[in-house]
């Protein structure tokens, strides 16, 4: 009963689930994204944290995060937060998180296609990139150089875990294969759309 509360001065005020809200806050400030779907019992299901943020996004969360100096960003299929002050020069390492994320995503995407698979391998829950495939992609010298230039000094399987899995941009399915979560898919969708917009009719 005490989980939910209404803003007392407005009958139509936000209804916030405090525990979901705090769990979402913990994940977002830890640099993770909150996807529209999460994996439960090995199957993708609607993510309650995403639903909570989405439900009261405009009436509560955007303002609440702004009050704490953060911007709650919603992209197709996921939420994340960034500092309202822009890039934090005092913390160059954490503000550069985007570099290993994009580096690993692109190396992974290109590696899968180069190996002869369809791109859908990365986005299909039942498929995913196997550990052996990750090893194979990561053993390529060019890929290793690109990863190094993206500030990644680990083998690709480990880098994928740190840059993607730990941030919920990808997950491991029941077979232990790496699959892109909503956020990972959104990254590639943005790339596809960007390319399409640049291509002359």
């Amino acid at each position, binding site marked *: 009963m005490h989980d939910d509360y209404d803003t007392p001065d407005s009958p139509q005020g936000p209804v916030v689930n405090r*525990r*979901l809200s*705090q*769990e979402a806050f913990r994940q*977002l*400030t*830890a*640099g993770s*994204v909150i996807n529209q779907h*999460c994996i439960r*019992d*090995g199957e993708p299901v609607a993510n*309650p944290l995403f639903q909570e943020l989405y439900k009261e996004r405009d009436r509560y969360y955007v303002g609440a995060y702004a*009050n*704490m*100096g953060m911007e709650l960003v919603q*992209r197709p299929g996921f939420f*994340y*937060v*960034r*500092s309202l002050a822009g890039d*934090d020069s*005092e913390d160059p390492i*954490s503000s*550069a*998180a985007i*570099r290993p994320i*994009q*580096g690993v995503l*692109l*190396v992974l*995407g*290109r590696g899968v*296609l180069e*190996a*002869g*698979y*369809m*791109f859908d*391998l990365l986005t299909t829950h*039942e*498929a995913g990139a*196997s*550990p052996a495939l990750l090893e194979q992609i990561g053993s390529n010298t060019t890929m290793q*150089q*690109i990863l190094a*230039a*993206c*500030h990644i000094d680990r083998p690709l399987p*480990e880098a994928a*875990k740190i840059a993607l899995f730990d941030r919920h941009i990808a*997950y*491991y399915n029941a077979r*232990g294969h790496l699959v892109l979560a909503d956020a990972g898919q*959104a*990254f*590639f969708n*943005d790339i596809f*759309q960007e*390319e399409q917009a640049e291509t002359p009719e």
Partner: protein
Amino acid sequence: MIVKAPYILKQLIDYRQHFTPLVDHMEQHHGTTEIPLRLYRRQVRAAADAAAQAVSKREGERVFQTLAENNLEHERLIVRKEQARGTLMFAPFVLEMLRHFDVSRLQGLSQTELEDLRRGLNQSLDAFEQLPLTFDDEDFCDELRLLRRRTQDTLANIQASVATLGAQSDRLGRIVDYQDIARLEDAAQTREALRHINRIYQRHILPALKFLDPQTAFKQGIPAITAIYRIADLMRDAGLPELDEELRLAANAIHVYIKDIDALRRSLERYVRQNQRQRQQYDSVESAFNRLREATEALHDGSLRDKYIPLNDPAIRRPGTFAGIKRLRLPGLDWRDIDHRADLEEFTDRRIAELRDARDQQGSVTVDPAHTGLNEADLARQRRQQEVQALLQGWQLPHGCGDLHQALHDFLQARLADYTLYDLLDALDWVMARPELGYRARFCHHVLAYGELELAYHPLTPLPTPKETPHA
């Protein structure tokens, strides 16, 4: 011993599955009509072996002798045989017969073939416009014979093309629909199938639709169907109603296939779009990856040690999906323009001023004890919740845990001063809010008694999750 044509043809029909590779060979070599002798002999041997196995050894020998090349040559089923080049050429109707048995292996009518049919019908129209339209004229009779052959060819070719394209589409569609994305061989097959479907769509389906549509505008001449209708009009005006009717029926019979072709077009469009999407995906990933590679190469001067792609490089800046994502350190949380001390001072100053005013007016001030008490109780409960929450940050699900209530109870009891079962309920709420963990309730009752309280519950068993990585 010479075997007669009907018996040879019967054997070809009975063992037709062994002769479809001949059709394959022709299709793979741009419609060549020359069949390698070696290929034909191999297929005859295969047919003979099949007959020997299915019927008897004697039957196998009979098939082998019947289908010998000299028999076929004698009965004009082979029109040419070049021993030096090792090739033979079948009579056209034999090839058509073999094609007819396995339409799925054929290609549909190409644009060039359709154009040839259309041009022929246009030539007939030109001829009839210049000839006297009477059976007394021999040129008219010759031209009519040619027209009938042309309409018959058109109808038969369109019909075969529709059957061919339909069968091919089904086969290729099945490859795409039933692929296992995780298998490399399936991915290669699917890519090839999609490429083939796209080719069928562009080179056979769309030209066939153009051919059958009476509204299509051509640079030279008119659509084939329209040409036949015009000739029918000429026949009607010349007082030849039978020919008029015959030609209109032929034109209608050809035109009817536009529905089948259009249905094929609709069924293939999904795969064509999928093919385009995959090509575009490949190009987009390639292009983004190349930006990253170029940015890496620009850094490279023999060593990449401590050299990272700048954050403002387009390779990192684009597409901006995760722009600004990072861990936000809470101790350093920037409260920006909010000065809490000033807020507090402002509040207390105002409140004290209000209380002074009230005292001045009434002589005394009454503070609502119930209200104050409630706030304190609320505050205490919040503090307690925070204490529980902080403890749970370091809590890990015990290995092989079969009862979440009991596990949390043991954990909290050992660490929390003045622990009660209310704290357990609080802790359960926190743990259950973590979306990555799932639980299943067992159909039985457990009771936990602690202090003055007792909790009856269904034990919760954590579900296995793929959270643990194979690299961990």
